[in-house]
């Protein structure tokens, strides 16, 4: 069991407010990802949970116990650093066993635990090497191994993959997901990469300027972003935003006037909107479709053929719109094309950037990782877990 509650956690450095009262709940065995642009406070929040930084105010509660004043080592957490932070003068085995050595664990027992972690991470042949004789991916695995050996209640990862090259990053992402399942542990993961967040998280926490913008499952954030920032941050390529005006609103949705003159009714809650109110229409590149009858028109400025897909960058007035089309489109640069979208795929944002709520929840937005849930149900039923 390992849960974490943050209540109104705030941090200020001198005059700058880095975190402005964060409330968050992390459930047992959950994989939670903090994501946000650099400087949003995500790393500071992780360091506060780790105990490397103290919160200016607020409570940090692990398994029902307030740990604000508990030292980093006694919180039962383990952290993997962005720079790996291996001890360069120690072998892999000593690196992984250091915490046990400090805790006064005997040599034989230490060896067993390190071997076990090394087995999980396939590090056995490297145990006698020094960190400088390892590749980036291997170093990262040692750093994770060092965390595993401590048998922590919660794993903390601070941008662990950002120093790796693209191919290795994909591989480590898969490995981390596998580890999460094998270790059955609660994990908190910080990244600025929304792809890492989308692929690994049970729950994503989007942070900006020291505040939580939205908390939810990846699909929930993708389909129901709470505001313009989350909508733009989650999803790749980025969501397109078009200035529109509301022309009518009823219980079936809001009718908007598009830049080219067309009308579309977006199924969102918009009662109380008056006609002529300026709104922003958000539509993801993958939800725009080439359509000769479509309400929008743009000139192709750049065309990127990826094989299976083609990215079109369309000049529409002063705006550049991204459209993901099929790999076989025959258009060329400078062609004038018409395009459109399905209204239920679109989002509307008011003048403050807040999303108007969809009338229908996307069926996948409540999706959680089925397998790990089942596993945890099973393990809870096992008698030895009650002891």
């Amino acid at each position, binding site marked *: 069991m390992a849960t974490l509650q943050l209540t109104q956690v705030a941090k200020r450095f001198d005059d700058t407010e880095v975190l402005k009262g964060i409330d968050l709940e992390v459930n047992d065995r959950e994989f939670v990802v903090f994501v946000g642009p650099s400087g949003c406070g995500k790393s500071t929040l992780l360091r506060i949970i780790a105990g*490397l930084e103290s919160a200016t105010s607020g409570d940090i509660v692990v398994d029902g116990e307030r740990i604000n004043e508990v030292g*980093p*080592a006694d919180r039962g*957490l383990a*952290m993997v650093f*962005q720079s790996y*932070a291996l*001890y*360069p003068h120690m072998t892999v085995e000593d690196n992984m066993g250091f915490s046990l050595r*400090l805790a006064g664990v005997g040599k034989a027992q230490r060896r067993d635990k390190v071997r076990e972690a090394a087995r999980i991470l396939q590090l056995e042949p490297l145990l006698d090497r020094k960190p400088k004789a390892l590749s980036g991916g291997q170093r990262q695995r040692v750093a994770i191994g060092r965390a595993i050996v401590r048998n922590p209640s919660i794993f903390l990862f601070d941008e662990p993959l950002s120093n790796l090259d693209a191919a290795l990053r994909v591989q480590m992402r898969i490995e981390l997901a596998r580890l999460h399942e094998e270790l059955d542990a609660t994990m908190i993961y910080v990244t600025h990469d929304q792809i890492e967040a989308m692929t690994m998280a049970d729950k994503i926490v989007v942070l900006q300027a020291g505040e939580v913008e939205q908390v939810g499952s990846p699909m929930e954030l993708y389909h129901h972003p709470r505001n313009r920032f989350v909508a733009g941050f989650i999803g790749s390529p980025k969501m397109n935003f078009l200035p529109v005006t509301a022309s009518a609103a009823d219980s079936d949705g809001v009718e908007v006037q598009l830049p080219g003159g067309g009308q579309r009714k977006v199924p969102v809650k918009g009662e109380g909107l008056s006609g002529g109110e300026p709104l922003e229409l958000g539509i993801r590149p993958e939800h725009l479709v080439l359509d000769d009858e479509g309400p929008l028109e743009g000139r192709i400025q750049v065309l990127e053929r990826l094989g299976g897909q083609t990215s079109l960058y369309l000049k529409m007035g002063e705006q550049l719109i991204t459209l993901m089309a099929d790999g076989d489109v025959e258009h060329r640069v400078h062609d004038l094309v018409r395009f459109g979208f399905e209204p239920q795929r679109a989002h509307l944002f008011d003048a403050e950037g807040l999303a108007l709520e969809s009338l229908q929840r996307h069926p996948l937005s409540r999706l959680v990782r089925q397998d790990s849930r089942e596993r945890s149900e099973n393990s809870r039923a096992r008698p030895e877990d009650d002891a």
Partner: protein
Amino acid sequence: MNTSRTQRLVLAVVAWSITFVIFFPILWMFLTGFKTEAQAIADPTLFFTPTLESYAAIQSRANYFHFALNSVYVAFGSTLLALLIGIPSAYSMAFLPTKRTKGTLLWMLSTKMLPPVGVLVPIYLIFRDLGMLDTRIGLIVVYTLMNLPIVIWMLYTFFKDLPKDILEAGRMDGASTHQEILFLLIPLTLPGIASTGLLSVILSWNEAFWSLNLTSSRAAPLTAYIASFSSPEGLFWAKLSAASTMAVAPILIFGWLTQKQMVRGLTFGAVK
């Protein structure tokens, strides 16, 4: 840019010339030690029959090893003490800095700008009252205080180069502050600590002002031994040179043996 042969040749000649100018007094001292007193004050010449006369004379007049041993005790003792105080101080300044850390460092270094003679009388009186005149402990204390600003400053710059993450990882692993220093900081900055220590040894070994003023015989190190040859009867150049050669020889050999370490330490941050 392609350095031509002549350019390199000119550079080499300049470098060797400068080295020679710097080294010349030491060479001359070394040679003079093997001359007779008459030869020593005669017209300078490189060609003479070397003699060990002066070395024999100085050995019969004073016990070299007594002074040498004092030098060893005092130089290494003060260095050890300076490191013992300096390492924790530099640790806190490098890893737990406050707004005043930079100022404190500068202030410490500024004490080195004060001429020592300015505090000679008070220190002499304090030492007299504490019974520390002409004791090795007294000299160790003075040298430690004298070198501490430089030691802390150097250690600080070496420690600053160590990624903070490594110590934080140690803290997550359960290391207390002293375990962090002992198991992580010291092993990882050992080259820097060693070169700091070597510098401190050399500075203490060569220090003359305090040793001449605070010691007379029991605790007198080699600097006092040399000075004792500029006697009231007048200057005896050959004997003085022989004594000086004997005094600098150990530290010169020591420096030569640890040269690699020194260079490694002084370029520690750059090549890491």
